[in-house]
Each structure stands twice: as structure tokens, then as C-alpha cells.
């Protein structure tokens, strides 16, 4: 009995030692990958930061309105955020690659999913950035056109255009990420519908007199004023 126990114990120890001997190189490979990944990610961060500074990305981000959002969230500049983001994504990618080398069952599928998710994450970020640029551009264009046409409350009009574009862009980005697709779709539909209904009610019922006055001022009085104002700039 005693011999059997010793034999089993010995065998278990042997198996453990054998498994460890098998595992140790993979662990070392994982650590090497993680280290290499850190180096590569760090280099990528430095290079990207230099390129972004060279192309004045912070200015672009400021024009897009993204810098203001970052400042409000107490985050560093857009260049720094994007550089750090790329660093962490790259390093995490290498770490997960190393973990996959360990051959731990169950993790493989999750790691594959992560790598499949990455392109979508980048596309979503790109959509958000371009969307912010578009929102800023069109809202500013509306603001300038409204001010020069002497339309009342130009900033409200501009903010409304900006909000609609951002809501639209966010719904596209979430759809791209595959996160809460239906919730976002329904939320966007409800929000957009509510906005339009609100405007329709406001102008149709609540603001009937206001709308009349507005239209009169716009098309009747202004015409008279223009006739009076015969300045020719050139």
C-alpha cells in the first residue's frame, strides 16, 4: 500500500515535472513575446506621436471638436491619447499572442475574437473622428449662414445640427462595433423621432404665432429692408 502511494506520488511528480518542462519554454516564449511586444509598441507609440505632431494632428482634432471633449474629460491631447491607445492595443495584442502560445484551453477562442474585433474598433474610431469633423464643419457652416442671413437663434440651429450628426455617427459606430446594436438603433430612432415631433409641435401649435412672425420677418419685412438698404459693397 505504502509502495503504491509512493509510486503514484512519484508518477504524479514526474508528470508535473514533465508538464512543467513542457510549459516552461512556452512561458519563456510568452514573456519574450510580451517584452518584444512592449518594445515594438513603445517604438510604434514614439513614431506615431512624431508623425501626428508633424501633421499637426492636435490642430485637426481641435477643429473637429475632439480636443474640447478630451479637455472636458481631463484627458491629455489627442496626439497623446491616440499614441497611448496604439501602444496599449499593440502591447495587449502581443501579450494575448503570448498567452495563446501557452495553449490554455478556452482562451484561444477569446483571443481570436479579440483580434477579429480590432479592425472594427479602429473603423469605429475612425468613423467617430470623421463624424466629429463633419459635425463641427456643418454646424459652423449653419451658424455662419444663419448669422449672415440674420436668422434668429443661430446657435440653437447650429447646436441642433451638431447633435443630430453626432447621434447619427455614434449609432453607426456602435453598429460597427456590434455593441447594443438594437438598443442604439431604437434609442436613435426614438430620439430623432422625438426631436422631429417636438419641432413639428413647437412650430405647428405652440409656436404658431412665432412661426408666422418669423416668416413675415423673413420674407416680407426683410424684403422691404433690403429695398431700403441699397448698399453695394463693390
Amino acid at each position, binding site marked *: 500500500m505504502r509502495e503504491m502511494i509512493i509510486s503514484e506520488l512519484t508518477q504524479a511528480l514526474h508528470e508535473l515535472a514533465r508538464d512543467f518542462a513542457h510549459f516552461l519554454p512556452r512561458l519563456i516564449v510568452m514573456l519574450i513575446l510580451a517584452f518584444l511586444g512592449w518594445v515594438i509598441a513603445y517604438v510604434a507609440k514614439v513614431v506615431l506621436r512624431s508623425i501626428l505632431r508633424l501633421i499637426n494632428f492636435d490642430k485637426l482634432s481641435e477643429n473637429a471638436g475632439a480636443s474640447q471633449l478630451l479637455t472636458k474629460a481631463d484627458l491629455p491631447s489627442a496626439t497623446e491619447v491616440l499614441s497611448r491607445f496604439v501602444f496599449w492595443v499593440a502591447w495587449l495584442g502581443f501579450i494575448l499572442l503570448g498567452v495563446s502560445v501557452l495553449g490554455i484551453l478556452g482562451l484561444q477562442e477569446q483571443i481570436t475574437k479579440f483580434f477579429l474585433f480590432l479592425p472594427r474598433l479602429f473603423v469605429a474610431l475612425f468613423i467617430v473622428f470623421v463624424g466629429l469633423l463633419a459635425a463641427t464643419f456643418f454646424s459652423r457652416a449653419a451658424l*455662419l449662414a444663419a448669422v449672415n442671413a440674420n436668422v434668429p437663434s443661430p446657435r440653437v440651429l447650429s447646436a441642433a445640427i451638431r447633435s443630430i450628426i453626432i447621434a447619427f455617427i455614434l449609432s453607426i459606430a456602435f453598429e460597427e462595433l456590434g455593441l447594443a446594436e438594437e438598443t442604439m438603433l431604437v434609442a436613435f430612432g426614438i430620439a430623432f423621432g422625438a426631436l422631429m415631433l417636438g419641432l413639428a409641435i413647437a412650430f405647428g401649435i405652440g409656436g404658431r404665432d412665432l412661426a408666422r412672425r418669423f416668416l413675415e420677418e423673413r420674407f416680407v419685412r426683410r424684403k422691404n429692408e433690403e429695398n431700403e438698404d441699397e*448698399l*453695394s459693397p*463693390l
Partner: protein
Amino acid sequence: MTLDGRSAVTSLVSPRRAGGIHTELKLEDETFLTDDFLRQLINVGEVDILVGLPTHNNAKTIRSIVQTIQSGILQAFPRERAVIINADGGSRDGTPELVTGISIDDVRPTSNLYALRTLHSISTKYGSTPATGVALRTILAAADLLRAKACIVMFPESATIESEWVSKLVRPIYRDGFDLVTPTYRRHKSEGLLLTNLLYPMIRALYGVRIREPYTAEFGFSGRLGSHFLNQNGWNDGTSGAGVELRFTLAAITGGYRICQSFLGEKERVERRGADLVPALRQTVGPLFSALESDFPVWSLVTGSQPVPTTGNGPEVLLEPMRVNRKRLREMFSNGVAELNSVFQLILSPSTLAELQRIAPLGEDEFRYPAELWVRTVYEFAASFQKSVISRDHTIQALAPLFRGRALTFLIENRNASAKEVEDNIEGLCLEFERLKPYLLQMWKSRE
């Protein structure tokens, strides 16, 4: 003879007769002149004088304008070979047919004038929508092909074109060897405020040349200046249409061409369009700001300014009362400063913006947009335009409410002023632009 008009280098070998046309026209890309137009040009042959007439739905006025031009040519240049080139932007009211249908015989009975040469009138349709840049390019290409010695362009927007204008614009080129003739007019003091408060003083301060009407509907130019501009201008950069007249003037200045002014008389427009400030800014201030970049080596070295030779009187100011809605100008200025604060923060310096915010709520009696503040505003806009802090078109649009404020100040300051006082005020503003030029240079150099 190549008449397909599609080769990179179009060679037009003239028929073997006296007065054949320019044998080779080099264009950067596919030529834009139609085959029919080229045939008409070949039939005309070389000319001494070319009158360019860009049109778009001008049937109501074009007949009298063409007759006036014909009369002007017959009076002053009966021995010269002349042609009227109509570049039409898709008129639907038969304008081109009217131009080509007007006979020289229509002019003779009233004026008792006789031409010793055939006076040609030809027309081409360059597109279905009007585009000043394309129209001018067409006229310049025709002038180049026909080897015209002196050319004038007349946009039919002027209601008071007189036959003497032809002579006044052509003679300095044809007889005196000038390359560009810009007009001066007799104008009401409230007219042309963008010219008197921005374009004239800024061009004078930066380029050192005192051209009173740098953007005009009537001007004359020599064949060599026309050819220079035809080959130099970036016609295909997508911006060639806007403000091409102003770029033409700037090209003459930077190219060192001989420039003079000629007094034409009273300036009155067919349509007064007071509300079209933003398009006017796009056509003039946009091209000017844009040109500052390429012309930096020229204007950065210029100090002071020199008058240009002027034939006839200098600009004259009319003083009769004119109804102007000052309240609306002030409101649009105040609203603009308040509503566009976020845009101005990107364009203007904090001190300039603070000063604008201080004067914005003032009533009409106290309201003044001082010359120094206006000049700083314009220069900061020019520097921001160059840096592209926001879309360049947005920068130009944002200037509109501020210009209204300056226009109001000009009107208030000159409400009871004599013609001399109005001129003195304009001169004072010009000197302010010249005095603050180092401020623009400083901003320009620190743009990186």
C-alpha cells in the same frame, strides 16, 4: 491645320493670307475652345483691338451695350482691326444671337460714323452656367490667338457704359504702352464700401500700388499681359472662377507691368445688390488672402506705396442723401459678434476680440469701429486664412458681420462730410493699413 481642339498643344496654322492668326497656342491641357469658335477666330484673323464681353441673360441691355462699344471703336479707332468677343455662360434669352445680330449699320445713322475695317462680333458659349473665370479665360485665349495688341473687358452689369469708355481704356495701352488700365469712377460715398475700406487700402499697403478699383467690371490690358496671365494663372485648381479679375490686377502688379488708371465717369449698377455681401467677399477678399501666400516674396519687401498714373480726374465722390438702414447694419454686427464668439476665438487675438465685444453693444450714437481695430481685424483674418485655422470659406464668411460694423462706422463718420473729407478719411484708413503692415508680417512669420 488642326481644328479638333483636343491636343495638348493646339497648332493653328493660319490660312495663307494677310492677318493670319497666332500660329501656336500652348495650353496646359485639353483646350476648352470649341471648334466652331476656333473657326470664327480664324475667319477674323489678327486684330489690333479686342473687346471681351462676358454675358449671361443680358438680353435687356446687351443691344445698347454692344452698340455703345461699336460706336466707341468707330469714333476712336476707325482704322484699327477690331473684334467684339462675347463669352456667354448659357443664356436662355437669346443674348449671344443679339450680340452677333447687331449690325454696324445700326450705329451709323445716329452717329454718322464709318469704319475703314470690318468690325467683327463673334460669340461662344463656354458652359451652361455663368463662370467669370472661364469667360475671362476664353477672352484671353481668343486675344492670344488673334494677337490683339490692346484688349478691354466689359461686364454688362454697368448701367452707364459710354462710348468714350472704349477709348479711355484702350488708348493708354495702344498709344502709351501701358499694360493694365483700371478705371476710376464718380461714385456715391456709400457705394463700393468693400473697395474703400478693405481692398484698396490693403492692396495699397501690401503691394505698394495705389489702384483705386482693383476689382472692376471694366478694364483694359495689353496682349502681353493677357498672355502672361493666361499661362500663369492656375486655371484648373478649382478656384480659378472666383475673383479672377482681382487676380488679374495682382498678376499685373507682381509681374512688374505698367499700370495706369483712367477716369470713366459715373458708376451705376444695373442691379444693386446690398445683401450679396458674402459672395462679394468670396470673390474679392478670398482671392486676395489666397494670393498673399504666393506673393509673399513680393509684398513682404514693399514699404510705403506709390500712386499710379491717372488720366482724367481722380475718383470723385457723390454726396447726395441716400437711405441706408443703419439700424440693421448695427444689429447684424452686434449679433455677429455675440453669436460667432466661438469662431472668432479661433481667428482673432484675445485683445482684438475683447475690443470687438466692448463696442458690439454700443448704441448708434456711441458706436465706432476704429480704423486701427479694423485693420488689426483684417490682418488677423488674413493670417488665420493662411494658417487655415478653420475652413477658409468659413473664415471669409465670418468677416461679413464685422465688415458691416466697419461700413456703419464709415457711414457715420462721413454722414455730413464733404467730398474732400471723405477722401481724407479713406486716405487715413490707407495709412493705417500701411502703418500696421509689420503686424501682419510678424503674424505671418510666426505662423509655424
